[in-house]
C-alpha cells in the first residue's frame, strides 16, 4: 500500500501554494505539520482529487488517482478543514446518507454507524441536527463520516480543531488503532496531535516539504539548539527581545525557568535541553511562536 505524491505543484494567481512536493506515504499515521498558509490544505485537496495540481500527480499503488476515479474514492476517506453539511441533517441521517454514497453494504451500515457513534461518543446526539451540535461534536461527526467505509487512505485536515483535551487524547488513540495497514495523513499545526502517534511526519513550509522523518529523526536536527536555564524574573523582558523563548515557568525567589531556541547558548548557566517536535516546529516557523505569544 503506497500513496506517492510526485512533483506536485499548485500555483494560484498570486501564490505558489504547493511547490514541487514529492512524498511517498506508506501504511501508518503520517503527520503533516506546517503553519497556516504553508500549503497543507492545498496538498490534501490534491490528494483527495478535488483540486487539480498545476504540475505533477498522485499515484495510489502505482496508478494515477484520477485514472482510478471511483476505485480510489471507494477506499478513500476525507475530512476537510471546514466540515460542511446540509443544515437539515441529523447525525444519523447524515451518516446514513454518507454510507449510501460510500457504498457501505446496507446490512453493515447500521452496525458501522452505531460503532462509530459509540467510539466518538456521539450516541446521545444521534438524532440531533448537526447544526445544533457544538464545534467539537461536529468535528467528530466529520471524523465519523470519513471512517464509515473503513478507508485504506484517510486524510484528515485539522481533525482536532475544536476538540477539548480529553477528546484529543481519545481521538489520537482511536487513530493509532485504526491506522494498522492503512495510510492516515493528519494535517495540523498542533504538534501534539501527531508527535506521539505519527509514524512519520512531513513538515511543510511555503509550499515545500522541508523535512520528513520519524519524530526522533526530525528532532535530531535541532539537537544542541534547545537550551534551558533559570534567570531572574526581571531580566525576562530584555531576554525576550533577543532570544526565541519557547517556554517559561515561574520558580521560587523570583526566578524563571526558560527554554529557548538558539544556535548556541546565549545565557549563562544554559544547558542543552532534549528537543521535542514542537521545538523543531517553532524553529522552522518563528512566526507561529509570535502568534502563540499573541494568544
Amino acid at each position, binding site marked *: 500500500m503506497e500513496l506517492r505524491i510526485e512533483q506536485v505543484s499548485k500555483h494560484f494567481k498570486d501564490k505558489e501554494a504547493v511547490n514541487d512536493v514529492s512524498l511517498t506515504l506508506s501504511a501508518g499515521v503520517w503527520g503533516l505539520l506546517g503553519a497556516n498558509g504553508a500549503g497543507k490544505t492545498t496538498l490534501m485537496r490534491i490528494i483527495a482529487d478535488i483540486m487539480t495540481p498545476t504540475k505533477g500527480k498522485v499515484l495510489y499503488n502505482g496508478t494515477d488517482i484520477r485514472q482510478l476515479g471511483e476505485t480510489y474514492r471507494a477506499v478513500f476517506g476525507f475530512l476537510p478543514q471546514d466540515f*460542511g453539511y446540509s443544515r437539515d441533517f441529523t447525525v444519523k441521517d447524515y451518516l446514513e446518507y454518507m454510507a449510501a*454514497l460510500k457504498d457501505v453494504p446496507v446490512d453493515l451500515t447500521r452496525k458501522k454507524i452505531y460503532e462509530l457513534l459509540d467510539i466518538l461518543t456521539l450516541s446521545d446526539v444521534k438524532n440531533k441536527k448537526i447544526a445544533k451540535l457544538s464545534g467539537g461534536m461536529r468535528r467528530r461527526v466529520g471524523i465519523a463520516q470519513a471512517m464509515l467505509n473503513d478507508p485504506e487512505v484517510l486524510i484528515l485536515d485539522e481533525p482536532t480543531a475544536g476538540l477539548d483535551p480529553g477528546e484529543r487524547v481519545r481521538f489520537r488513540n482511536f487513530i493509532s488503532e485504526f491506522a494498522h495497514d492503512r495510510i492516515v495523513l493528519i494535517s495540523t499545526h498542533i504538534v501534539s496531535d501527531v508527535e506521539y502517534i505519527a509514524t512519520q511526519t512531513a513538515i511543510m513550509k511555503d509550499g515545500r516539504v522541508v523535512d520528513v522523518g520519524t519524530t526522533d529523526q526530525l528532532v535530531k536536527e535541532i539537537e544542541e539548539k534547545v537550551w534551558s536555564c533559570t534567570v531572574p524574573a526581571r531580566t525576562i523582558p530584555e531576554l525576550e527581545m533577543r532570544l526565541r523563548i519557547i517556554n517559561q515557568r515561574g520558580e521560587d525567589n523570583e526566578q524563571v525557568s526558560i527554554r529557548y531556541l538558539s544556535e548556541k547558548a546565549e545565557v549563562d548557566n544554559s544547558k542543552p535541553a532534549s528537543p521535542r517536535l514542537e521545538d523543531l516546529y517553532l524553529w522552522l516557523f518563528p512566526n507561529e511562536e509570535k502568534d502563540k505569544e499573541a494568544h
Partner: protein
Amino acid sequence: MRMLKVELKRILKSRRAVILMIAGICLSALLAVAPISFVSADVYDSNGKVQELNGLSAIRYWREIKAPSNGEVTPEKLKAALETYQKCVEEYGSPDSEDFPVDVYIDKISPIRDLLRLLPTTYSEYVNGNLVPRDLTEINIEEVDSFYEACETRLENVIKVEREPESTSQKAASLYNKVDRPFELYVGYDTNAFDYLCFCILFLVIIGVVLSAPLFSENYESGADQILRCTKYGRKKLAQTKMFANMLTSILMYIMGIIVHLLISDLSFGTTTLKTSVQAIYDTISLPNLNLFQLQIVLAVGGLLTLISVNAFTYFLSSKFERAAGTISVSLIVTLAPLFIFAAFGNNWISSILPAGGIGLNNNLLMQLVDFRFLHLGTHSFWTPQVTMLFTIIWIPVFLILAVRSYCKHRVA
C-alpha cells in the same frame, strides 16, 4: 435506488423544501379561487329588487340563464340568436343603452350573448388594410348560413393584414382545417380562469427554480461538496441522483398544485363547460383543435415541460455558481426573460427558444395557442407554440447533460 431514497429523505426533511412545496400548493389553490370570486351577477326578484350574486352562486346563475346556448355552434343556432338580437334592437333599441328593459335583456339577450360574441369579429370587414368588426345589427341574417366559411375568410384576411408570407398562410390553413366544426359551446367557463391557470404555472415554475437553485451551489458554499465528491458515488451518480430527486420533488409539487387548481376551478365552473371548443371562447380563428379540457391538459403538460426545462437549466447554473443566491438570481432572470423580451419586441425567436418560453403573461403558451403567432426563418414559417415547446424539450437533455458534466468537472477553487 438506495441513493435516491436517502436523497429524497434529505429533501423531504428539509424545512425549506417542505415550506416551498406547501406554499406552491396553497398558492395554486388561491389562484384557482380568485377567478371564481370575480364572477358576479345582478339578479332581480319579483319586486324588482336587485340582489348581487358572487362566486359560485353567480356561476350557477349564469349557467342556468345561458343554458340555451349550450351544444353545437350551428349556423342555424347563430342565425336564430342574431334574429332574436336584431328584433330586440328594433323593438327596444341598443341593449347597451340604459333604456333597454332589464327583464328583456335577461330573458332574450343573456341566453344568447356567448353565441352573439362570435359574430362581429368573424364578419369583420377589410377596410384600408385593417379588419374592422361589424356591428351585430349590420350583419345580414342570411350571411350567417356560411359562418364557418366566414371564419376561413377571416383567417385569410388576418394573414393579409399581418402581411404574413405564403408559408404562414399554408401552415395556418393546414392547422385550421384540422379544427373540428361545428364548434361546441357550453357556457359558464370564464377565460379569467385560464389566465389564472397560466399565473399558477408561472408561480409553480418560479418556486421550482427556488427549490432547485441550491442543489449544488449550497454544497459548494457550505463546503459539504468537498466531502461528497470524495466518496465512491460522489461524482456522476450523485449529480444524477440529486437532480432526479429534486426533479421528482418539483414535479410532485407541480402536479399536486395543478391538480388542486384544476379541481377547484373545474368543479366550480362545471365540468360540462370543458367540452367547449377553444374557438368558441377565444377567437373563431384560433388554430388548435382543442376543447377547454384538452387546452387545460396542453397548458399543464406544457407547464410541466417548462418546469423540467427551467429546472435543468437551474441545475446547470447551480453546478457552476459557488453561491445559491447567485444561481437563484440568474435563473429567475432567465426564467422571466421571455416575458420582458416579448413585452419589448413582440413575438420573436429569442423569447420562444429560451427554456421558459412557454410561461409569462402575454407571451405564455395559452396566448401563443389562441392568438395568431408565427415565427419566420427565411421562407419558412413556424407556429410559435410548436417552436416554444420544441425548444423547451430540446433544452431538457442539453442542460441535464451539461449540469452533470459541469458538476463532475467542478474543482475546489
